């Protein structure tokens, strides 16, 4: 095994690979900067504004009318309930809470009032959160400013500058905590978005590497030499896969470090803009909120995530061995890796821009059939207490990897490896 492994590694870990790795590292660092700056600057408006109206006055009605005049669809409730219950019942992602006495404060006492901005945290995807977050409180705040300006156009009241202050609330796992969902997502995304990116790159790179390696061995007929040698075929396959796994881990570590360094650099820059005490307090508050909402992943959970990661790489490697074995020559290796690329790209992109777990039944079934999907959503499953989905995904991956290994062994012990070409082109027999 060691003998073959050394040969496989010397084939894979060459100067070309190291150069590619260096270039990829630089690209990943750059990508990290672009992503973090894009995400932090992205908060787009959407068509709905949700209001929990606890004041129920003409003025709060005027706020709703104002928003509707601007083209928003305003949905409001007037009953006083726990925020998590209202958001759950109404299927809202956010809401602005107009407190009782708000009109009195603003119009009679001429004082600023506090509006609670409630956000339901359903995923840790920053892109998804950016699209899902309607920022109802922001729109309400603007509408209040405009209404008051119209009413007191000639006045010089100081409170008009900031008639409303927003207090962010986040709802998750059936709990509500006073914290900004954006801050929570930023904190969680450090890890939750790094892993899918690294996983995506790992699957694509390792599958391409192994398919090309097997195809090259077929073209050069070195595979026939190996398979007719006294070394057991399971050892030949095992050595090839282990070498690809080691290469993949090197890629993972380098990419992970590259992405982390860009994130840490960003954190440093943020910290430069505030004093150390404030930065520390913010960090503690965010961590407290994460714990209060039960969004943290336990040590055992992380072990599970790592197991899913390894299972996914195992599936990709074994599938690549099968596809590589069926490829006729090196030219066909590009096309052969396409199924793996597609099966990786779909769940990766969807997990970045949307919440896969909240999709329609058909879409979910289709996506859950792809074994890679479960790793992309693993962290989210654990954070939002969907342990059944997490464990089910892991069991599915175990079954899938065992079936793939069995199929690979069967293929490499069968005629198909060589007769595949005869079926289409019988130049030699």
């Amino acid at each position, binding site marked *: 095994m060691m003998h073959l492994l050394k040969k496989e590694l010397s084939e894979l870990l060459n100067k070309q690979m190291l150069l590619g790795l260096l270039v990829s590292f630089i690209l990943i660092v750059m990508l990290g900067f672009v992503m973090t700056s894009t995400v932090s600057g992205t908060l787009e408006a959407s068509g709905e504004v949700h209001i929990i109206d606890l004041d129920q006055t003409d003025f709060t009605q005027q706020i709703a009318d104002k928003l509707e005049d601007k083209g928003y669809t305003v949905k409001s409730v007037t009953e006083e309930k726990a925020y998590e219950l209202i958001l759950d019942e109404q299927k809202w992602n956010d809401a602005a809470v107009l407190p009782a006495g708000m009109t009195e404060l603003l119009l009679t006492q001429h004082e600023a009032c506090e509006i609670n901005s409630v956000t339901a945290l359903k995923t840790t995807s920053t892109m998804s959160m950016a699209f899902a977050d309607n920022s109802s409180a922001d729109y309400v705040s603007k509408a209040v400013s405009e209404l008051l300006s119209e009413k007191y156009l000639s006045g010089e009241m100081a409170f008009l500058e900031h008639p409303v202050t927003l207090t962010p609330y986040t709802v998750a796992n059936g709990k509500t905590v006073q914290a900004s969902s954006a801050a929570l997502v930023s904190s969680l995304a450090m890890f939750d978005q790094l892993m899918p990116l690294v996983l995506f790159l790992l699957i694509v790179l390792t599958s391409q590497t192994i398919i090309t390696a097997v195809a090259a061995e077929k073209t050069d*007929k*070195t595979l*026939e030499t190996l*398979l*007719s040698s*006294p*070394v057991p075929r399971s050892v030949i396959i095992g050595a090839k896969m282990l070498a690809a796994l080691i290469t993949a881990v090197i890629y993972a570590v380098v990419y992970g470090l590259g992405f982390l360094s860009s994130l840490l650099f960003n954190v440093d820059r943020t910290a430069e803009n505030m004093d150390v005490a404030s930065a520390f307090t913010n960090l503690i508050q965010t961590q407290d909120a994460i714990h209060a909402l039960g969004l943290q992943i336990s040590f055992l959970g992380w072990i599970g995530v790592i197991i899913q990661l390894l299972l996914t790489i195992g599936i990709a490697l074994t599938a690549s061995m099968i596809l590589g074995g069926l490829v006729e020559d090196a030219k066909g290796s590009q096309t052969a890796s396409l199924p793996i690329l597609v099966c990786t790209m779909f769940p990766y992109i969807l997990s970045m821009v949307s919440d896969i777990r909240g999709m329609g039944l058909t879409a979910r079934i289709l996506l859950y059939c792809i074994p890679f999907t479960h790793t992309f959503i693993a962290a989210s499953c654990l954070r939002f207490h969907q342990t059944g989905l997490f464990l089910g995904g892991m069991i599915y991956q175990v079954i899938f990897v065992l079936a793939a290994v069995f199929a690979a062994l069967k293929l490499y012990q069968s005629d198909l490896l060589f007769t595949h070409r005869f079926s289409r082109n019988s130049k030699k*027999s």
Partner: protein
Amino acid sequence: MNPALDVRELAKSYGQKQAVNGVSFQIPAGQIFGLMGMNGAGKTTILRMLATLLKPDSGDALIDGNSIVKNPEKVRACISYLPDEAGAYRSMTGKNYLKFIAGLYFRDEAEQKDCAALGEEICGLGEALERKINTYSRGMTRKLVLARTVMTKPKLAILDEPTSGLDVLNSLDIRKTIRNCANEYGTAFLLSSHHMQEVSTTADRGAIMKDGVFLAEGTPQELLDMYQAKTLEEAFEKAVRSA
């Protein structure tokens, strides 16, 4: 004494096409057997079945007493297979390639060293062995892979078109190496070839194949006599056209 190779009614088909149809022959130790036939005659299929890469539909072959059907693992320990136009790992040096192949056949380091040293001697590439294989010419690569095939002193060496695409001098070197190894180590050789000259000068016995069956089998002289031909090429033409 058992022959190095004893082929019994070997057959193989690919879908509707019968590639090999009940072929039987024997090769004693130290002898060279040449398979002659046109493209698609079934030569490579026979070689691949004996190399345990393909499973026969029926029939069997015993290599040093081991069945290719029942004991393919044991067979692999006593054969060496050189595919047509086989390459080697281009990023390795010639020396490292021979060491690597030796490592596949022997666990003991001393045995690996001796085996690789023999390979170096057989290929006769000298200092070029220190260079990477991607700098080798076709002839050099062929000498290297032939050396790795015979350096393990297999009971049976299976060579598919060993001189295909080589110039006259390189072809002559390869043929000499095969003859020497058969004489010196008692290795039995089964080679397929398009070159009748190669078979007539190198092989002790040969067979003319068409559509998966042997049309004729014997020593080069017996084949000439059988078809009343002056050259093996003429005998081959007569055999194939009359079949």
